[in-house]
């Protein structure tokens, strides 16, 4: 989605990829230098120095506890998304192809969706207690909407001529769903999955931070521990930096997988 539309910006075509990369790199370096200079002017108790934050972030790589925390966050991300896909995609296929069912559920969904999922952290932890089960429940609830919505939108976008053609050749309903509807809905589902990926990361870290140590390991718990007592701001910022890198990497992995697994969608990517 972030790739440049070819017709829109002829300049990027003229300058080419190397110029863009070097510009981006210059931008990052200038930002880091400015942040360091700002840190020199402002007392480090208010705003920690950029070099301190980067140093802490580098040290976290050798911190066994932090590695375990990242692993636990990743585990909840993978499991949460997998469970959501297993539930939301078939449900979306059902809702998208049966008009009556769809109307009634849409009304309910319309009223359920505005409830901020972070507000459910406390409710789910009251009902289920804290831990992985609670984190996963939360992730599944939060990720359900984008995947469900995109699956239904994908079914709306199926080419009716292709469906009619298969029907004319005597294919059954299930066979048409498998051969036409699902493949053409898959790019939409993949987009839903990428949105859900960000939501899953947010909920996993958010739940860990609010519940704290009781919720077991995770990046959120790590930040919660760094915040207690005299809060260790450089440590919080260093963990935030890694959380951002994790978010970028997960998004890149999903985009790469989308290109590899859905080659027929390449044109619109």
């Amino acid at each position, binding site marked *: 989605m*972030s790739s440049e*539309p070819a*017709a*829109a*910006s002829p*300049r*990027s075509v003229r*300058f080419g990829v190397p*110029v*863009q990369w070097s*510009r*981006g790199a*210059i*931008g*990052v370096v*200038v*930002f880091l230098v400015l942040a360091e200079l700002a840190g020199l002017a402002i007392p480090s108790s*208010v*705003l920690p120095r950029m070099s301190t934050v980067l140093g802490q972030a580098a040290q976290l790589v050798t911190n066994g506890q932090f590695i375990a925390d990242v692993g636990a966050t990743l585990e909840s991300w993978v499991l949460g998304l997998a469970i959501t896909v297993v539930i939301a995609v078939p449900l979306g296929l059902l809702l998208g192809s049966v008009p009556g069912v769809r*109307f*009634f559920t*849409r*009304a*309910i969904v*319309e*009223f*359920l969706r*505005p*409830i*901020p999922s*972070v*507000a459910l*952290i*406390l*409710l789910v932890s*009251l009902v289920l207690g804290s831990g992985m089960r609670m984190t996963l429940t939360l992730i599944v609830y939060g990720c359900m909407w984008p995947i469900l919505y995109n699956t239904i939108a994908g079914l709306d976008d199926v080419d009716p001529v292709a469906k009619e053609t298969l029907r004319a050749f005597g294919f059954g309903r299930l066979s048409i769903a498998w051969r036409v509807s699902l493949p053409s809905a898959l790019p939409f589902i993949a987009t839903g999955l990428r949105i859900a990926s*960000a939501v899953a*990361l*947010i909920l996993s*870290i*958010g739940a860990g*931070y*609010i519940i704290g140590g009781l919720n077991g390991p995770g*990046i*959120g718990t790590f*930040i919660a521990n*760094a*915040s207690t007592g005299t*809060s260790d*701001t450089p440590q*919080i*910022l260093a*963990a*935030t930096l890694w*959380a*951002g*890198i994790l*978010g*970028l990497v997960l*998004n890149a992995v999903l985009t790469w997988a989308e290109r590899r697994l859905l080659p027929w969608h390449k044109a619109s990517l």
Partner: protein
Amino acid sequence: MRIPGWLRWLGWIRQWLVLAIAVWLWQEWANSRQSTFFPPPSTILSQMHQQWFSGPAAHLFLTSDATGNVVPSVVRILIGLAISIAIAIPLGIALGRSAVVTGFLDPLLQFARAIPVVTAAPVFLALFQLGTQMEVATIVAGTIWPLLLNTIDGARTVGALHLETATVFRLSRWERLTKVIIPSALPKIFTGLRLSVSLSLILMVYSELVGSSNGIGYEMNSASNSFDLPEFWATLVLLAILGYLMNVIVDGVEKLTLSWHRGAKRFAR
């Protein structure tokens, strides 16, 4: 293409009817189960009425609890969104029109967007103190990215034909901006605004759960700590209503703004 007015009303009534049936089913189920965790809607409604809307007529029936907690939360959302809009839209249009500057900033923007927003609250909690400052900063830190990136995208993809026409008609820079660039960027800006508005509710609750001495999130936290499930559900339902209303308002503003835009486009042809 236009749906007749009466048909739209019918759809609207049916939607609320479905909600009413769902609430009634929940009422029956909760009454028969006597569950502590899921109180019946009647209990939640009477709790909401008693807690927020049973005040004196002179205060529009709002209780001191409502003016002390609901109002501050709404004000924080409005301030946060106003700051995000004031920064993101002018900056986004400027960046969108300059491929060179965007090239320098792109990696930083992509990274900032990838940071899970929930880590902003602990950072600001450490930088500022408990209170409105920290909550507004968290809301801005989360809501600014969808608005900024969508505005950049909208301003960048202005049709070449529109711009050339503006040049032929010797439009001044200001006219070019207000008559060509901003109107063509508006649909994208609204896409960003929609995302930001729903994020603002999430971040309001989250930042108030993390650290606040008043607000809806604060009430939710204290209800959960004292195991007062009816009060907890009352805050949850209030959040859902707030979220629903915010969506309705954005829809209305979008319809007003973009219908003018569509009209202007038709007129220009």
